[in-house]
């Protein structure tokens, strides 16, 4: 049903039903400001104390004409009174600002879920752009399958804002705040944080503040006053560990992490990088931190990015380079040099869908092989992976700690899901973070030749930096004699050096924590995961244990080398299941090393795992009945169309 009423009508207060958690999604045209809307909802919910996890769905890297399927932009928010680890599977509520948004998002709304549509944008032209020949909002099936609310957002907003002195174009830009206000009402959120945000953001434009305020309020009133909505919901604050929080996206946390690592090791931070989706924002964030002594260098290409990083590392800075799959491919030769030079640096790969240019805006875990063994010659390097947006911070510190301890480049893997997803971060006290010790040999008057490849107990070589009197030395990419570092072609020396470089990297296992396991120490099934699938795997395994299954979960942080105790752990379970967003790369490495028949659960769709998918697979592995795949209502399928149209 629809209406244009806006005057608050005094009504009996509506019923409020409590919920443990909810997953909602705002979807509209790229121009509709859906990201900001969801962002506001996220912050407000966070301030309210819910645990939250969000995941955006930007349009692919191309721009698309307004109202088309390709132009749809959406953002999902999962908020809860318990600790949560994923942005949620099926949607409890979906807001669509136009037909294209309906078509590309409907499929994810659970049966009986709330569907709010701005019916004013369902005109003939809009329907055509989305490829509907008739108005889906009129189709009975939507009414039957979901709680459908057709709202004349445009009309109402124009109405309430007509005398703000803004033109229609500007007024229409406030639609999203109407939707936000309505959803705030639906989940009993306070308007104040957003009003504050609006006041700050548009401090100089009072009429814009006014219009947005009215729109937000009108949305709230709409829920409160019209009898469209029978009841609203309440999600209690979560019991998070005490402390101060803020929501962070993965790339943002990575930027903060490397910055902190630099300070903790008393180093200047150098970033040599070439922009690439989805890694660019790390470069963009760090370039804001000049006053922290951060030097960002936007190189002419990825090869210059990694080699300038090598130069900066030789100079004694904390040097890092960031990219994604195709860019990392280009860095391969340079990384080989860094391995030969045995200089500390971080190579950060925010993975995306491949191969080649592939799916730049989608997530994937298919660069693990490339990270661990994707170079010419025997060129071992430690590989670590982030598991969630906030954890990127810790992973960065850990990666740099190992890099300087062992004098080696370290590959740090993230992915598009982590990079753009967000969750609350328990803000640490910088002064309480452990320092990262770095030693540079001091000046020498001895006049003796300095020995750049003389190693310590873990086989690390000294980090002697130019400018240090008496330590002049030359390094390079040709095989070198151990200790002296002089060019050397001796057969035995080469084998010795190959083994030494490998052993050094193996030694990393001595300084990383033993692998921990959630759930039974032994049992029927161990889920072994890495990277961004942490949340889904953890949630799924916990759910299975609640169903009484003997399922444990081990999440790897270090992919190379593996924790010392991993082999023993794997032996303790009848089955090992390795879910990955690739065709089985970790599985291959685990099978080769431990000769166990690890099973894979693999999805290569540019999308994260749904928790339910994992639960089903785990049950299948244990030979148990699985929830029948919710077979799709044919008519819905009709209306939903396929993402293919989103070209």
């Amino acid at each position: 049903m629809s209406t244009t009423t806006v005057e608050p009508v005094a009504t009996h207060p509506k019923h409020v039903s409590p919920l443990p958690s909810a997953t909602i999604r705002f979807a509209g045209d790229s121009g509709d400001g859906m990201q900001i809307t969801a962002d506001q909802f996220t912050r407000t919910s966070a301030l309210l104390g819910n645990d939250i996890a969000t995941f955006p769905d930007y349009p692919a890297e191309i721009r698309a004409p307004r109202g088309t399927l390709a132009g749809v932009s959406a953002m999902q928010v999962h908020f809860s009174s318990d600790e949560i680890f994923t942005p949620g599977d099926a949607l409890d509520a979906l807001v669509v600002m136009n037909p294209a948004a309906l078509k590309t998002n409907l499929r994810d709304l659970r049966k009986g879920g709330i569907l709010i549509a701005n019916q004013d944008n369902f005109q003939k032209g809009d329907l055509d752009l989305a490829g509907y020949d008739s108005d889906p909002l009129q189709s009975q099936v939507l009414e039957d399958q979901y709680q459908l609310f057709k709202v004349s957002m445009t009309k109402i907003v124009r109405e309430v804002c007509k005398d703000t002195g803004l033109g229609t174009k500007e007024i229409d830009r406030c639609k999203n705040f109407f939707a936000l206000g309505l959803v705030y009402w639906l989940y009993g959120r306070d308007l104040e944080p957003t009003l504050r945000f609006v006041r700050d953001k548009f401090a100089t434009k009072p009429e814009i503040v006014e219009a947005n305020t009215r729109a937000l309020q009108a949305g709230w009133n709409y829920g409160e006053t019209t009898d469209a909505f029978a009841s609203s919901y309440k999600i209690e604050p979560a019991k998070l560990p005490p402390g101060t929080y803020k929501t962070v996206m993965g790339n943002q946390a990575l930027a903060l992490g490397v910055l902190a690592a630099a300070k903790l090791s008393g180093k200047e931070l150098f970033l040599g990088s070439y922009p690439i989706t989805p890694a660019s924002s790390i470069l963009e964030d760090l370039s804001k931190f000049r006053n922290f002594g951060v030097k960002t260098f936007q190189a002419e290409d990825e090869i210059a990015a990694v080699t300038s990083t090598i130069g900066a590392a030789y100079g004694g800075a904390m040097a890092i380079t960031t990219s994604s799959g195709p860019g990392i491919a280009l860095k391969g030769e340079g990384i080989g040099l860094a391995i030969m030079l045995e200089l500390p640096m971080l190579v950060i790969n925010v993975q995306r869908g491949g191969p080649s240019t592939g799916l730049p805006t989608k997530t994937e875990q298919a660069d693990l092989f490339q990270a661990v063994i994707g170079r010419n010659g025997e060129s071992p390097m430690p590989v670590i992976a982030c598991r969630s947006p906030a954890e990127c911070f810790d992973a960065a510190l850990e990666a740099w700690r190992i890099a300087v301890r062992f004098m080696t480049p370290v590959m740090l893997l993230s992915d598009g899901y982590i990079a753009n997803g967000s969750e609350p971060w328990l803000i640490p006290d910088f002064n309480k973070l452990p320092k990262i010790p770095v030693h540079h040999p001091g000046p020498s008057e001895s006049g003796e030749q300095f020995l750049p490849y003389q190693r310590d107990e873990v086989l690390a070589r000294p980090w002697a930096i130019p400018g240090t009197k008496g330590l002049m030395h030359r390094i390079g990419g040709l095989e070198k004699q151990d200790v002296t570092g002089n060019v050397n072609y001796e057969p035995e020396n080469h084998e010795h050096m190959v083994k030494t470089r490998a052993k050094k990297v193996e030694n990393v296992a001595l300084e990383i924590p033993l692998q921990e396991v959630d759930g039974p120490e032994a049992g029927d099934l161990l889920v072994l995961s890495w990277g961004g699938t942490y949340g889904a795997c953890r949630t799924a395994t916990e759910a299975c244990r609640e169903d009484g299954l003997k399922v444990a979960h081990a999440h790897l942080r270090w992919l190379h080398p593996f924790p010392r105790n991993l082999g023993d752990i794997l032996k303790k379970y009848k089955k090992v299941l390795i879910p990955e967003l690739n065709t089985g790369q970790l599985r291959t490495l685990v099978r080769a090393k431990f000769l166990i028949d690890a099973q894979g659960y693999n999805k290569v769709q540019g999308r994260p795992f749904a928790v339910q998918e994992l639960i089903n697979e785990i049950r299948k592995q244990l030979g148990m009945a699985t929830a029948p795949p919710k077979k799709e209502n044919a008519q819905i399928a009709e209306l939903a169309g396929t993402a293919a149209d989103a070209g």
Partner: protein
Amino acid sequence: MPTEAPTLTPADFASDQDVRWCPGCGDYSILAQMKKVLPQIGVPREKIVFVSGIGCSSRFPYYMNTYGMHSIHGRAPAIATGLKAVRPDLQVWVVTGDGDGLSIGGNHLLHCIRRNVDLKILLFNNRIYGLTKGQYSPTTPLGQVNKTAVMGVIDNPLNPLSIAIGAEASFVARSIDVNIKHLGEILKRAANHKGTAFVEIFQNCNVFNDGAWDYASKKETKFDTVVELEHGKPLIFGKNRDKGIRLNGTEPEIVELGKGIKEDDLLFHDEKSPTATLAYLLSRMQYPAMPTPIGVFRAVDAPKYDVELGKQVEAAKAKKGEGDLNALFNSGDTWTVA
């Protein structure tokens, strides 16, 4: 800082590694000049870094008792850029070859030059790939027959100086391996320039491309085939300095001095001319059509990437104060759980 320097001799700049170039290679003479010049520059050895790529020429760092990196093929300018960005206190030299610098490394060279990073880049041009035994390079003349051009080179060669000038170079010079006095002077000029100093050095590969520069290095011919550029002076050459270069519109032409033509009618060299057009014009002069110029083509002052980067850091600190991580962590919307 240059306390130690004055007392140093060329020998102090020799590393303990034996030099492994072919007997008679032009690289020896360049190495000798470098060792001779550095003590005069007055920068302590530990403040000097030589970065090279791969190639015979790129062995250079191994033979200098300074800091050095023999890196990978073509990447020296990028490595040096990263090094200089974080260590403006160092004097960084890049040694590269016509293959290393202009073929695989062309892009880095280009961008390093346009950013005007404070590096001294020496390109040893022997017009051949020496280390890999005689394939043609981007400076090998058209028609030359060699290992990979059995019927003659059809890849129109690059002119290293034209490229550098096209890439906004602030310092461009040329010298010759065996012209040791001139070479020494040019190295000094490069060392003292602030910004990217790009120097092409004609170098003879006596094994795979012997005599490539004979016209310019042999005393029988060089006076008539080479013109030495001097700032503020007219372009005069010839054994008896009786020939000069005159400008005709935008084209240079050779004229005989005397016979009514006075020095003032000639083209006067100006390293600092407002645009680089003169430098470009000179870079196009080539034997046999014209005498090939050597010397400093262009030397102007321009902002240096590494310096500007440092300035931004200082400016940011001055404006926002030294970054405070706790403040940064706690910026934006935060909330507290008791």
